[in-house]
């Protein structure tokens, strides 16, 4: 198809906004800054909608190359954009949720001195994120990948005068670097063995290879390295540690970057690389195991946290784990489906949490909240919807996506499924714990206190109050999306046809002939649009319905338990915690992972740097040799400079002496 959609405009628009606000914003009034930021991010959203409206008339994948970038012999990389079903979903999520969070931020950040800076960074983030999802090759994707890391660093450390925020920013950046390293090595391997990084060419070449079922080979190595990158960006074990700390950033940032979009980049990247992963079953198994462990691990930590944002952060890590379970069992579209619904309800949860924090004057400790239900009704209702959505209560969005993942996981291994369901129960429990602690019971905080832990220094709080409309509108829109967002993927067992799966099907089927063939139906040759991705389970709808019932039950059980613990008998949790003793302490302290990392990696690094590299090599070797060379030169000069007295007559004497010597020599030679 020759039609040109000018896809390059989509990332460039927010960049223009970032440039205007970043360079000139200091002189602008808040109205102008917010107008600029909203205009450009809204324009990107509008472009995305336009692209979506033209989508059915395109031949997919739709590639637009804007300019040549690298030409080195056979190897070439262009500034090109790649649009297919997968990037369209990501595009709409990023621009849509991003735009809503921009609107929300105007209200949330209004009092902050760094207002223009905040929006410049936020737009910059949009630029890089859109580059990431629209890139048509891994290198351009890597630019976006690094760029969102930068934006994330800038926004986590937004209140950089606060020590904890500054170091959280560094922690996020450095942890991400570890992952990026794996990603980069994977790219080198791809260049070396396939000579291209462009998706279309690369996947075509990869498709020609047969799956590495018998032993681990090149594709497994590449897959594992890509997974290292994904684990860094998407906060999976062992690189998840930065995400909870990233909550030091402003709450809209937590919603946009650390819940809805950036952290899902890893999921997107693995899904985009499905052609590689499908041929590396061992890498896929690793992905699934990491996802499963992360989901469970983070959920248990989430139960013990008391900071409202920390609970949500661990919840995000856990939900990302779910997505990786889906990817790991080659149910890519289920993973992307959960990515989308998660963006809605987790974005909403964070924004609502921000609204709560706003209402109680910057307090983030849930133990000092309570009874807010009647005081901030809009926030309460939207948060309720989001909580039910993430808990997997039908018919909200989270139910469908989570159910889809669990069902597909069960088909791969009952262990994934069992841990998944248990995690679903934990998820429901800690989310309703948050819900009950925040909105029910009696208010336990100090209403008049307005010590701004968050952005609200000098806000002049007159008690608990609902947020302004500009913050509530995005909440309501996201709440609606959290309800209806799952309806695009109603599974066959519930009378739907899983349109989402079918929509994404062509992306994941186009290069995946082999892996799913193991348990494929005989009629696999039917046209792709009539098939779901992979195989439609042959076990029948009744089995699937039973599993659906179990996962709903797990969610309700979590609700019931949270109701018992945090509404009816609020003294119970304390007693249980005391009876668990050391284990509870370990979980509460996040299993001491930070401390273990500090002991294993950070301390040796600091010691090695300060004792060996600094004191030993830098001071001992380099400085000493330079100083000694300088001292030696000075000593020699000290001796030699005495000849240069500056006295003309002494020079003349030397000349005369020299001449006399020459003369004597000549006379002596002549007389021989």
């Amino acid at each position, binding site marked *: 198809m020759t039609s040109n959609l000018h896809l390059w405009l989509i990332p460039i628009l927010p960049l223009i906004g970032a440039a205007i606000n970043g360079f000139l914003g200091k002189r602008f009034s808040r109205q102008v800054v917010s107008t600029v930021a909203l205009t450009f991010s809204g324009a990107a959203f509008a472009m995305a909608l336009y692209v979506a409206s033209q989508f059915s008339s395109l031949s997919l994948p739709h590639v637009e190359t804007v300019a040549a970038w690298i030409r080195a012999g056979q190897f070439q990389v262009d500034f090109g954009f790649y649009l297919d079903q997968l990037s369209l979903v990501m595009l709409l999520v990023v621009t849509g949720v991003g735009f809503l969070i921009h609107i929300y931020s105007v209200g949330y950040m209004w009092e902050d001195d760094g207002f223009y800076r905040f929006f410049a960074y936020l737009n910059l983030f949009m630029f890089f994120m859109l580059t990431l999802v629209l890139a048509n090759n891994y290198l351009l994707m890597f630019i976006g990948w690094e760029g969102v890391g930068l934006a994330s660093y800038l926004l986590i450390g937004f209140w950089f005068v606060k020590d904890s925020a500054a170091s959280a920013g560094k922690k996020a950046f450095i942890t991400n670097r570890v992952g990026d390293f794996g990603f980069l090595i994977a790219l080198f391997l791809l260049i070396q063995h396939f000579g291209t990084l462009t998706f279309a060419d690369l996947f075509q070449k990869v498709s020609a290879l047969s799956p590495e079922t018998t032993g681990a080979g090149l594709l497994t190595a590449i897959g594992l390295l890509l997974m290292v990158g994904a684990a860094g960006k998407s906060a999976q074990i062992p690189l998840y540690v930065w995400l909870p700390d990233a909550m030091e950033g402003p709450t809209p940032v937590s919603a946009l970057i650390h819940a809805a979009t950036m952290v899902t980049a890893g999921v997107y990247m693995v899904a985009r690389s499905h052609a590689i992963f499908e041929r590396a079953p061992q890498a896929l198994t690793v992905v699934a195991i990491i996802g499963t462990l992360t989901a469970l691990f983070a959920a248990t930590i989430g139960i013990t946290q008391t900071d409202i944002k920390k609970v949500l952060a661990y919840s995000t890590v856990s939900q990302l784990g779910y997505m990786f379970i889906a990817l790991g069992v080659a149910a890519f579209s289920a993973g992307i489906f959960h990515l989308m619904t998660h963006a809605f309800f987790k974005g909403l949860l964070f924004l609502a949490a921000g609204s709560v924090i706003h209402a109680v004057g910057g307090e983030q400790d849930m133990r000092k909240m309570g009874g807010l239900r009647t005081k901030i009704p809009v926030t309460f209702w939207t948060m309720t919807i989001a909580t039910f959505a993430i808990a997997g209560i039908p018919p909200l969005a989270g139910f469908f996506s989570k159910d889809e993942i669990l069902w597909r996981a069960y088909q791969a291994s009952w262990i994934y499924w069992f841990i998944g369901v248990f995690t679903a129960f934990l998820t429901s429990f800690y989310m309703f714990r948050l819900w009950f602690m925040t909105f029910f019971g009696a208010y336990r905080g100090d209403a008049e206190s307005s010590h701004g832990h968050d952005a609200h220094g000098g806000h002049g709080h007159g008690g608990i109050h609902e947020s302004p409309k500009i913050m509530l509108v995005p909440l309501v829109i996201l709440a609606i999306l959290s309800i209806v967002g799952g309806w695009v993927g109603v599974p066959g067992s519930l009378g739907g046809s899983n349109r989402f799966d079918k929509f994404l099907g062509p992306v994941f089927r186009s290069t995946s002939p082999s892996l799913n063939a193991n348990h494929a139906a005989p009629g696999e040759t039917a046209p792709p649009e009539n098939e779901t991705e992979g195989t439609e389970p042959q076990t029948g709808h009744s089995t699937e319905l039973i599993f659906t019932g179990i996962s709903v039950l797990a969610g309700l059980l979590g609700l019931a338990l949270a109701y018992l613990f945090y509404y009816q008998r609020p003294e119970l949790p304390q007693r249980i915690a005391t009876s668990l003793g050391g284990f509870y302490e370990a979980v509460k302290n996040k299993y001491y992972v930070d401390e273990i990392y500090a002991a294993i990696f950070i301390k040796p690094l600091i010691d090695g740097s300060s004792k060996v590299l600094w004191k030993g090599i830098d001071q001992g070797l380099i400085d000493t040799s330079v100083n000694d060379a300088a001292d030696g030169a000075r000593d020699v000069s000290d001796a030699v400079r005495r000849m240069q007295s*500056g*006295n*003309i*007559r002494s020079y*003349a*004497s030397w000349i*005369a002496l020299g001449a006399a010597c020459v003369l004597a020599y000549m006379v002596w030679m002549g007389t021989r």
Partner: protein
Amino acid sequence: MVPLSYYLVLSGILFACGVTGFIIKRNIITIFMSIELMLNGVNLSFVAFAANWKALSGQVFVFFVMVVAAAEAAVGLAIIIAVYRNRETLNVDRVNLLKL
């Protein structure tokens, strides 16, 4: 006929006087005159050789030396006057602004 060696010895004596004066004297004018003395000592040896070997090139060289000496005297005296105006001294040991 005076033998060549006499001229050469006289030339050497003149040159040695010039060198000695140049080295031991502090007055810049005296130093300047010592330079002239050295030049003339060399000139004497030139003309002596020229006369001895009946070759004109030695005499020509003397003219060159004289011209250079005249030019040198013009420039050198100008410098001496400038130095005296600035420093109010002709002692070379006092003209040491560039010394460390």
